[in-house]
């Protein structure tokens, strides 16, 4: 699908935010993603997966059919994202999506805990906005706790976005340049200890970030028996479940050893993943 760049600007260092518009409405859920073909040539060849950072589903139609808008938040890590960073307003890019299974919203939740490391923050703003929209019980109105981790203060993104919707934001940086010195999973542990009186069944954790962090979060959640969803990141070719390239080992429940991150995920129940072999 051809999509038009509405805005593309650098936030800080290698972090960029792009706003895109496409014909038809984007009916996406937080945690889902698009695959972007950053150039019409064959180097780079494959599409690049990018999460929905913000979903603006129902923009007043200005042409027949109307259009959807969405934002992505991305970091330059190689040639694909480098090309993306050079796109200008009005440029066209080819997107495929929405793809994958996004976050889901367990019933009876009082407090939603969002935890993200580095660029893992990207899907979490859409998620927080959705939780806010759904209200109490389905993700807990008014009770969103956010933990953000990064190497240094410049890797802490979107703090203001979460605060704007009334979330309670906790920050950790490895060098201590912002928030607490250390990793955000430690903050989560401390918070859970401090709130030991809460019913764990009324909490729900949503996590996205580097694999080590996700594993630590999964450990915590499994230990404490808190519902926990993790958004995984694997190299992808097709994004649709066709190539079987993006698999992750799951605990062998239905005799399938591997699931596709692109189609069965990227969001998984933390308890489903075989963390030892990831």
């Amino acid at each position, binding site marked *: 699908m051809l999509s038009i760049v509405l805005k593309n600007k650098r936030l800080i260092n290698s972090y960029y935010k792009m706003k895109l518009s496409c014909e038809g409405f984007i009916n996406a859920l937080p945690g889902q993603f698009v695959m972007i*073909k950053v150039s019409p040539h*064959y*180097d*780079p*060849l*494959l*599409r690049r997966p990018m999460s929905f950072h913000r979903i603006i589903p129902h923009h007043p139609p200005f042409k027949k059919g109307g259009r959807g808008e969405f934002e992505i938040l991305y970091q330059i890590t190689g040639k694909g994202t480098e090309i993306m960073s050079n796109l200008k307003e009005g440029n066209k890019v*080819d997107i*495929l999506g929405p793809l994958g299974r996004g976050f889901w919203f367990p019933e009876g939740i009082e407090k939603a805990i969002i935890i993200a490391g580095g660029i893992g923050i990207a899907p979490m703003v859409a998620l927080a906005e959705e939780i806010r929209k759904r209200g109490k019980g389905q993700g807990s109105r008014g009770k969103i706790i956010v933990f953000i981790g990064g190497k240094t203060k410049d890797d802490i993104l979107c703090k203001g976005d979460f605060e704007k919707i009334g979330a309670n934001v906790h920050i950790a940086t490895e060098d201590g340049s912002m928030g607490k010195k250390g990793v955000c999973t430690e903050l989560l542990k401390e918070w859970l200890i401090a709130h030991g009186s809460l019913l764990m069944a009324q909490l729900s954790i949503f996590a996205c970030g580097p694999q080590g962090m996700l594993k630590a979060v999964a450990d915590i959640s499994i230990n404490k028996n808190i519902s926990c969803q993790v958004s995984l990141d*694997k*190299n*992808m*070719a*097709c*994004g*649709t*479940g*066709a*190539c*079987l*390239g*993006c*698999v*992750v*080992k799951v605990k062998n429940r239905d005799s399938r*050893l*591997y699931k596709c991150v692109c*189609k069965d995920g990227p969001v998984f129940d933390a308890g489903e993943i075989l963390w030892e*072999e990831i």
Partner: protein
Amino acid sequence: MGRDIDLSVNIAGINLKNPVMVASGTFGYGEEYAPYVNINKLGAIIVKGLSLTPRNGNPPPRIVETEAGMLNSIGLQNIGMDTFIKEKLPFLKKYDTKVIVNFFGDSIDEYCEIAKMAGSAPGIHGLEMNISCPNKQEGWLEFGTNSDLTFRVVSAVRKNTNLPLIVKLSPNVTDITVIARSAAEAGADAISLINTLSGMAIDIETRRPKLANIIGGLSGPAIKPVALKMVWQVARSIKLPVIGIGGIMTYKDSIEFMIAGASAVQVGTANFIDPAVTEKIIDGLELYCEQKSIKAIKEITGSIVT
């Protein structure tokens, strides 16, 4: 656009409405891409390679992008013939396109067993044997890199099926025409080529191979010149129809293969980049014929001027 242009081709006794198929392993079992492409428009679907029983495939990472290509080491993960026939074939039967089962085995017996099963499942229009697999019983030598093994496995399968039989060749050989001739003599109805080239990539930070399996198969535009050359060679040296595969991204690429001698083509990696690419290719073929006043696409097969 030109209704009177005949895009149909007959391969190994299968009538295809046009010469454009999707290659095995790049289109799942059809379902995955159904939302993105008009499956009724395709010449045929070659499904992901099937074995007798389900296989888990290789550990991840399984894919790496390379310059104008990609490496994969999926390791032939598949749901097995049984489950395919029960759960996937009914879906595919709903479409007006041909279904060709790509399959492989560890042994000659396994190949034959699958061929038999396919023969008794209505809705399967043809078979494509992937012989780029090691022969477990005889020292893990790949069937497709040895003309004797090729002959034996193809003859054995031939005896066990009346379905149109396509043999898919590995490009990782000194002389692909030798293997093609063995397959032809053993009773193949058509030859498809190429499967992926063997390749590798290394992460210089960890000094580990980028694929858990160390080695993978290279596909995509990078391999097109190699594929085209092999198709040309094989088409000149055997009488069977040849199906061209390897790096086809556009209708122009498809036409190159047909001019080189292919009667039809398969599109693989390109599906990942554009799920609707095959529709565009089919439209492009029609346009090309129109512009060149070609009445039937089959006329261009082997029309290379040297």
